[in-house]
Each structure stands twice: as structure tokens, then as C-alpha cells.
């Protein structure tokens, strides 16, 4: 990265540290909470380490790293404020997520050496995907959770990472039919689990990647029509979906019953107003599932409309930064991988925030980096890891170019 960008990144890291410091200080002073005082020192420290020191060891896109880690920190802050136990839980999730991120970065780095594992990835993915149907538990109408070795997790979140790798890999080799077959099997299994929010995400990602790889407008229009048909079939077959649509159309028909959640989310946002109620002064806990599905409403409630808009814009920046990485990539595989990663984060953000503000029917996907949840955090960080892997490769490519250019001049 050039010198100019490094300076810019410093101007992102510093306000971030200040933000976390004052936020935890405020929480600490409010109830004289020693834990919060410790966090006031620890969080900015970790933030600095991860955004400034880590990229010195492993070259990566610093702005992207800073934005992502700021959002993770914001999630931890809001969860800590809602329920300190959940906040500390999220710290653990974040630590695992960081390891996952570095792991995925290394996977991309050493992909040429390990690409022979592709068939295994595909088989394991499909096996994992089928797992909830065999031993899964039902939550919010979807049979998407599995408990193994004492850990509760959602296979579809992990397979999202595999899907990106597999699609990018196969499409780079023009194996369109194989890609569609793999995505189709995953989608079918998701449909059977009634996890329609995630199915929507998988579908749109596959559609975008296949379109970009083949450039076929016929496929794009067919895919869009197929999405409409799928939505229609899902709507007809599933009363749970019909209820969701009904709530979306008129949430005020039954504000104390079925639409309690989304109505409370809307009310929480308007109570926040442009400037928010102030950190620690709101009552967002009244929204059911505020820590997972409705974390955005909680942020909006306490930090206000302007900050809420900024959070959305940060996701937009992450997306555009990711697209920048895709544009600079030096192989088709890398371009598709980086684009897929950026799109998956952006679309997931759209789906869940859209549900929070009742722009689209609510589905149970999580808000990347912010929602409470180990699987979600790890998968989001792994996706960023893949993206950083491509950024890392771009940089090495650039260095090689310069080296070749230098050698060329000498000879």
C-alpha cells in the first residue's frame, strides 16, 4: 500500500480508539462499573494492535481491516451495554473470528499448493449442509442449527465461506454447470430446512458470480425470473413465510402480537431520533432478539439516525473497498472470490437492516460483525480473510511487477 493510504488509515484508527475509550468510560461512570473501565483501556489497545500492528506482519488492505474491526468493536460495545455477559461472549467469538480471518488469508495465499482439496471441500460442505435435517433443532421456523461436541452452530454460515471458494474456483475454470449443481444442492437443502433468508443470500451470490463470470444476460434474466418463481413457491408452501409477509405489509394490525418485534424495533428507532437517546440511556432491551436480529435497531436507538446512516455507509465502504480489491486482482479466480466476498457481506447487510426498518419482510440472517453469535462472527471474519488474501496477493503481484521492471531496466 502506498504511503498516502497509510496516513489516511491512521486518521481512521485514532478516532476509532477515541470512540471506544469514551464509550466505555461513559458506561463505567454511569454505574461505576470496573469491567467497563478495564474495557475502556483494553478495547482501544486491541483495536490498535489489530489495525496497525497486524498488517505489518501480514500485508493486507488496511482501510478494510480498520472498518471491519471498528464494526466488530461497535458490536461488542452495544452487546456489553445490553448484557455484559453477551459482550464478553462476543469478545471470544471475535478472537476465534480473527484466527479464522488469518487462516482464510493463508488459504488464499497457499491456494496453489492446496487446491487439490477442492473435491473434499465440496463433499464436506454438502454433508454439513444436510446435517441439520438429520440432527438439527428448530429455531424461528428454520431447522438450521446443529449441536455437536457441546457447540451450537449453524452449518449454512460456515458453508457460505466454502460456497464462495467453490464458485470462484469452478467459474474461473468455466465449469458453469458444476457450479450451478453445487449451488443448487445447497439451495435445495436450505429450502428443506426452511432457512429462506440464507437461501436468498446463496441464490443472489451465485447469480451475481455466474453472471460476472459468463457475462450472459440470458442467464441473468432467467435467474431473476427463477428468483421470483422461488419466492412464489416458498410463499405458497410455507405459512411461516406468509405470516412474515403479512407482518411486513401491515405491522400495525397486531402490534402486541405477531408484529410486536418489528413494531418495537421501529418505535425504538424513532425514540432514538436524529441523535439517539445516548449510550446507556435507552431501553432497546424491550425488542425481542435484540442481540442477534435487531442489533441495528439497538444501535440506532442509542446512537441515533445519523450514526445509523454512518453504519450503513461503513458497510457500503467495506463493499466498495472489497470491489477495489477485486478490480486489482490478477486472476479470474481472485477477482470472482473478492467480488463474491464483498457482495455476500453487502447483501446480508441489506437483508437484515431492511428487515429491521420494515423495508422488506424480516428474515433471520445476522448483521455481519455486529450481531451476537459465534458462527456468524467467524464466517463473516473468514469472508473478510478471503478478501484480505486476495488483497495480499495483489500486493505481492505489484512487488513482483516492480522487481521485474527494475531488472528489466538493469539488463
Amino acid at each position: 500500500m502506498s504511503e498516502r493510504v497509510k496516513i489516511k488509515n491512521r486518521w481512521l484508527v485514532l478516532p476509532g480508539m477515541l470512540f471506544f475509550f469514551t464509550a466505555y468510560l461513559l458506561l463505567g461512570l454511569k454505574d461505576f462499573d470496573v469491567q467497563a473501565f478495564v474495557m475502556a483501556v483494553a478495547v482501544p489497545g486491541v483495536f490498535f494492535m489489530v489495525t496497525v500492528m497486524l498488517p505489518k506482519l501480514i500485508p493486507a488492505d488496511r482501510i478494510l481491516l480498520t472498518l471491519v474491526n471498528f464494526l466488530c468493536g461497535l458490536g461488542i460495545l452495544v452487546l456489553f451495554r445490553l448484557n455484559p455477559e453477551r459482550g464478553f461472549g462476543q469478545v471470544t467469538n471475535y478472537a476465534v473470528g480473527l484466527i479464522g480471518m488469518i487462516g482464510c488469508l493463508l488459504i488464499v495465499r497457499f491456494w496453489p499448493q492446496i487446491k487439490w482439496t477442492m473435491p473434499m471441500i465440496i463433499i464436506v460442505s454438502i454433508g454439513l449442509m444436510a446435517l441439520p435435517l438429520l440432527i438439527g433443532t428448530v429455531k424461528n421456523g428454520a431447522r438450521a442449527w446443529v449441536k455437536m461436541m457441546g457447540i451450537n452452530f449453524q452449518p449454512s454460515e460456515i458453508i457460505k465461506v466454502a460456497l464462495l471458494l467453490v464458485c470462484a474456483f469452478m467459474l474461473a475454470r468455466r465449469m458453469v454447470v458444476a457450479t450451478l449443481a453445487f449451488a443448487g444442492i445447497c439451495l435445495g437443502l436450505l429450502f428443506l430446512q426452511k432457512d429462506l433468508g440464507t437461501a436468498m443470500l446463496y441464490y443472489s451470490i451465485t447469480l451475481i458470480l455466474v453472471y460476472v463470470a459468463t457475462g450472459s444476460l440470458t442467464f441473468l434474466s432467467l435467474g431473476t425470473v427463477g428468483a421470483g418463481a422461488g419466492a412464489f413457491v416458498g410463499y405458497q408452501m410455507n405459512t411461516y413465510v406468509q405470516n412474515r409477509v403479512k407482518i411486513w405489509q401491515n405491522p400495525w394490525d397486531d402490534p402486541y402480537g405477531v408484529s410486536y418485534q418489528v413494531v418495537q424495533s421501529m418505535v425504538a428507532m424513532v425514540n432514538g431520533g436524529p441523535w439517539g437517546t445516548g449510550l446507556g440511556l435507552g431501553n432497546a432491551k424491550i425488542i425481542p432478539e435484540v442481540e442477534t436480529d435487531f442489533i441495528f435497531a439497538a444501535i440506532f436507538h442509542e446512537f441515533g439516525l445519523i450514526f445509523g446512516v454512518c453504519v450503513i455507509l461503513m458497510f457500503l465502504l467495506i463493499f466498495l473497498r472489497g470491489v477495489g480489491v477485486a478490480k486489482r486482482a490478477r486472476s479470474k479466480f481472485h477477482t470472482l472470490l473478492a467480488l463474491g466476498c464483498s457482495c455476500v457481506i453487502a447483501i446480508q447487510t441489506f437483508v437484515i437492516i431492511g428487515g429491521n426498518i420494515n423495508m422488506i419482510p424480516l428474515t433471520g440472517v445476522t448483521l455481519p460483525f455486529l450481531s451476537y453469535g459465534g458462527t456468524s462472527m467467524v464466517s463473516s471474519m473468514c469472508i473478510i480473510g478471503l478478501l484480505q488474501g486476495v488483497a495480499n496477493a495483489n500486493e505481492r503481484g505489484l512487488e513482483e511487477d516492480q522487481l521485474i521492471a527494475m531488472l528489466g531496466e538493469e539488463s
Partner: protein
Amino acid sequence: MKLIKRKLRIAVITVSILLISLVAYGVYSLGVSGNRWFSSSVNTSLRKVKQGVVPGRIYDRNGIQLAGANNKGERLYHTDETTRRSLVHVLGVPDGTVKNGVETFMSYLLYAYDDSYVRRLSAAFSGQMRNGYDLRLSISSGLSRMITDQFPKDKSGAVVVMNYRTGEILSLNSFPNFDPLAMEGVATNPQKPYINNVTQWRSAPGSTFKVVTLAAALANLPDAMERTFTCTGAYQVGESIITDAGNATHGEITLQRALAVSCNITFAKLALELGDEQLRLTAQSFGLDDHLLFSDLVVENSRYPSKDRIAKELAWTGPGQSVLFVTPLHMCLVASAIANDGVMMAPKLLLQALDHHKQGKAQMTPLVYKQVMTAKDADIIAEAMRQVILSGTGTRAAVPGLKICGKTGSAQIDGQESTNAWFVGFIDEKTLPYACCVVVNEAGEGSRHAAPLARQIFEYIKTQR
């Protein structure tokens, strides 16, 4: 590679638009409906907002104080019990038992929710109470009181009076009502006196709906007013036989005459001739099936019945006896649109809001809700409604010296012994642009039990000129 990067752009633009649309939609919906959500009874934070604020006083259009507050922030009311009762549904009560009264729906003004942070902080440090904004409503407390006095004591129902040129609501009464100073047992009363029957109660409007059927005929049948229909006293549609009140037989009859005498058979034939689609379109142009979002009032959406109906149901829709769901306020808006040359005005309740230093915080501006029909068609319907008063079912609503137009209705409701008595009408005078809708439930015919109350309302307005 080049091809891929060109295709990238479309994907990037699409996804970026998705994210930006989140911001646009969020800001838009908060701007449009924010106050509505904020003041809904679901908002548990409202109580917190009210702390430390003396609620604003509420005045009627003539400056009579309807509700005040002591400096502890507790509500004080008018000394007269009938006045308190007649206004309880408009004003609401501070604890929100009456949903969406001024007390809750305008709480962002009454409790000065948009006060600056400077003022909030200085109030917090000095320990003083902040002051909410004073409201002046378009309500006439004298008219409201008169209506409460004259309404049958043992009946439920609704009365609404509005200015059809500006949309100002003069009176809005729901029965049964209750005294806000005697709240015990109100919330558990099986009669539900806390429901506002004008805005929250939907029912079949009976023959008053014939004016809408007539509007559909004018819009779709060029020779509608010249034609004659034959009423033989009974008309079979499928297995159902349509008859007229008192088994009357009207013989050869024009549409104008049919409206005057309220001939069910003619309007059933008209509905069948027009068809479901045309009738639906006209009803929708009158605002049925609309998502009603008025700035000062929360109104249930009125509904035209769903599609795929059999002939019998359609035939009964013409005379307004089918499964229609219309609020009394909406029927008043229908009459207003006819009176106002086909232009429906949005109902308004708030004339002015002033803060503690007499600075204006809100000001009423008349707002056109929609153009319902042409001025020419509106004139023809108004003339037919004039005949209702002069020589039809509405003679009991006539006031000497005033040009009254109206339509009566007697809505049959399953499981009720007597019909619900309806009357919608207006004064067709430039200086007195007022329309009203009167509903007396389970009372009998609209001509006998709703029209006389309308006459009293028109007379009251005349004396106040």
C-alpha cells in the same frame, strides 16, 4: 479478464443501490411516519418522555380551554361533565386508554419532544419543569356538547362534522363515552366506551353508499341520468331476492328519483350492470382500500370487499348492504367530496401549536387528499341528494332557509334486531361549508333516527353563523 471487469460494474452498482436504498427508505419512513410510531400506544418510552414536562394546554377553535395542567404536570379538565364526556375521544386520556387521541397522537407537541438539547439540559440542571406546546384544535366544544346532549342516551354510535372546504373537523363524537375524571372500570367495560367509533369502527354504511354507486354510474354510463329503471318490488338475483324497505314498489323510476326514495332494486341492477370492477374502481377513487395516513388523525382503512364475488353479493353492494367496511369519518369524507366539487380534503384537527413564548410550532394548512370525480358529476349527485331532503327519505333533516343535501341509510347487520341508522349530508351554501355523518346503532331507519340529529346539527351551525 477485461470482460469480467466490465461486468463487475453492473453488479457493483446494483448492490450499492441496495445499500443506499436502506438509508433512503429509513430516512423517508421516519420522516413520514415517525410521529405516528412515536405516539402509538406501543411506545413504552413515552412515559419517560413525559417526565419533567408540563403538558401543553388544549383549546377549542374559539379559545375555550378544554384541558390544562397544574405545575406538577397533572391534567386538569373542563368543569362541565357533558363537555368532558363529549371530548374524551378527541382528546384521549394521558394513560392512553383511548388510543390515538390528541393526548397520545400529538404527544410530540404536547410534551415538546423536539425541544433543543440546550433547553433540556438547562431544565435538568435547574430542576425546573419544561413546558409543552399549547394546541388549538378545530373542534367546536359547543357543538360537541349539543350533540352529546341530543344523542339517544342508551345507544351507541358516532357523529362527525367537518368543514368540506378546508377539512377542519368541528366535532367528533363517539358513543358511549365516559368522563375522564371517572376512569374506574372504563378499560374493562364490555361496551368498550374507549373505542372511537368515528375513526376505529368499520361497518356496512347501508344506503348512504348509494351515492358512491351513483358516482360509478355517472363515470361509466353516459346516459345514466336520462334512463329509467323498473322497480317491481322484488328482484331475484341467484337464490336471493332484493326488496325495498317496507316492500315498496316504485315502478318506472329515474336514478335521481331512485336515490331520493332509496330504491334498493334500482341500485342493485345498477351494480350488476356496472360490474364489480367498475364499482370497485369508483369506491377506491373515494378512498376505500387506501392506506389512510392523515397528519392529525389515526383512521382505520375502509375496505371494499375482496375480489371474486358472486352476483348476489355484488347486487347487494350497490345499495351498500354487502360486506363493506367503512368508518363514519370516511362516509363524512365521501359527502364532503360531493359537496366540494369532487375534491376530497384531508381531515384536520390541529389549527395551531404555540410554545411557551408564543412561537408557532405548527399551523394548519388545508390539504387536498384527492380529486374523487369531476365537478359536473359531483353537482349531479348533490342535486339528487337535494331531492332526498326535499321529497325523499331525508325530509326530517330539512332546515328552513338552508340548502341541505343528504342521504339516509339503514344498515342491516347480522344478529341485530334493528338496523343501524345512518345519515350523511351537507349544507350547500358558500358561507356554511359543513358536512356531517350521523350513525345511531340498532335504532331503526336512518330517516327517523339519524336525520333529525343531522337537522339539529345544521340548525346549530346556522345559529352560530
